[in-house]
């Protein structure tokens, strides 16, 4: 069945996203990895929806609706994460999660 | 027969987009990378329109419309952030 190809592809995207999320030191790249992980999970769920094709629909509409809701929530979470990251950059002068690097560096300007 | 021709045509356009995408992502200049959204703006839309005609799902034309709008929006975002990161280039480029 054709949908299986995309299931495999979603699983691989999720795995790659997880790898990037853990190993990449840059917070922005972690956010990218997290989005990749989420997209892979949505895609896998989309394959489940496709398997549930019945009653004249091309797929089960319930998982499809949940994926749409999930995408909007993922965007909201990404926007908040990016705003936090930019705030970190503005106050600490570097976008890094390494606690030693920020405490050694110049004192953050108080706003 | 017509269906097969249209589907095969969309496969051909996909191959062209794939080759172009590999070329464009590799750079070397950021200006090259900015072309990625443009590539989907023409190739992706041609692909969707061919698929819509092949499968008789007319809603795919709506997807093509949305993609056309959002590809333009993303291209503008590319150009603006690209030009901003170029403004910061002296310093950043020399450190590396």
């Amino acid at each position, binding site marked *: 069945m054709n949908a299986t190809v995309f299931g495999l592809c979603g699983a691989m995207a999720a795995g790659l996203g997880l790898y990037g999320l853990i190993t990449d030191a840059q917070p922005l790249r972690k956010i*990218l990895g997290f989005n990749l992980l989420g997209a892979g999970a949505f895609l896998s769920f989309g394959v489940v929806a496709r398997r549930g094709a019945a009653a004249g629909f*091309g797929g*089960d509409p*319930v998982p499809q609706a949940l994926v749409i809701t999930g995408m909007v929530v993922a965007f909201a979470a990404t*926007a908040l994460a990016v705003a936090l990251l930019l705030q970190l950059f503005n106050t600490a002068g570097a976008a890094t999660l390494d606690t030693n690097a920020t405490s050694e560096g110049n004192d953050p300007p108080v706003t | 027969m017509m269906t097969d021709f249209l589907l095969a045509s969309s496969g051909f356009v996909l191959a062209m987009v794939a080759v172009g*995408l590999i070329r464009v992502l590799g750079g070397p200049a950021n200006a090259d990378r900015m072309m990625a959204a443009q590539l989907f703006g023409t190739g992706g839309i041609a692909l969707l329109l061919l698929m819509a005609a092949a499968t008789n799902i007319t809603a795919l034309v*709506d997807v093509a419309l949305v*993609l056309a709008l959002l590809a333009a929006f993303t291209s503008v975002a590319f150009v603006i952030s690209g030009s901003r990161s170029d403004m910061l280039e002296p310093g*950043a480029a020399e450190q590396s």
Partner: protein
Amino acid sequence: MTIGFALDSAIAVLVVAVSCWTIIARASFAAVVGFVSFGLLLTLVWVRLDAVDVALTEAAIGSGLTGALLLAAAARLRTSEFATQAERPSMALRVATALLSATATAALAGALFLLPSPAPTLAPAAAANAGATGLGNPVTNVLIAFRAMDTMLEKVVLLLALVGVWSLASDRFWGGPPSPLRGANTEGPLAFLARLLTPLGIVVGIYILWEGADHPGGAFQGGTILAAMWLLLMMSGVANAPATRFRSLRLVLISGPMVFLVIGLGGLWLGEAFLAYPVAYAKPLILVIEFVMTLTIAVTLALLLAGPPTREASR
């Protein structure tokens, strides 16, 4: 069918290749461009999975808005990028992570392969109850009627995320406008494009909302297109980002969840259940919710992307 299978396989290989690029690319800008391409390719995947509603959402939010957000962040963080690149984790950690990721992939793929053969589905139930709302699009039915609670709470999540972003502003900027989204040279072609594209985009956005009743489309997709058009005006310098203290702006932000809540409580008051629409008025009520929600989604998404207020509110 074989042509279709070849097409699907080619798309799948391309998706995996682009996600690899997103992880391994050296420069963040290149990685984000890879991610945007990934989103655009996913749109094709959703089309091939016969989930056109999801394809529209992916094209609009997944690649469009998320891409613009991450691109702007990559541009801002450019100076800090090379310093952080040095902090690479040890080889042992990377190998362990690779193993963990491979296991996760295998588990996910295995779960999909081991799915029971006539897969469990709610499609017949959704088809049987479609008459209760009078709408022809099953996905809109699920979103607005059958699982309306999810959709309402998701509006609240969007609002909370915006409150979170705004609360990062320092006290003296509270209520002021966010930073301008403008680029280096906005005069000329960009302003021309924004003026030309926005009216067309608004028509397409409303059309997608309207289509959502019976065909793929709806409030999310329409709202995102409207948000993108507003952002285009801001990025090209034709419009300015609004001060966040405006009453009217805040009213639009809360009107979506509020209308949902009021109609939901109305269902309770009429003796049925929370969010149960009286059958005779189901369709007009749903249209009211969808229309108000589109406006709220458009404004919330655009402001989420614009970020926290960074300038003092002018009196």
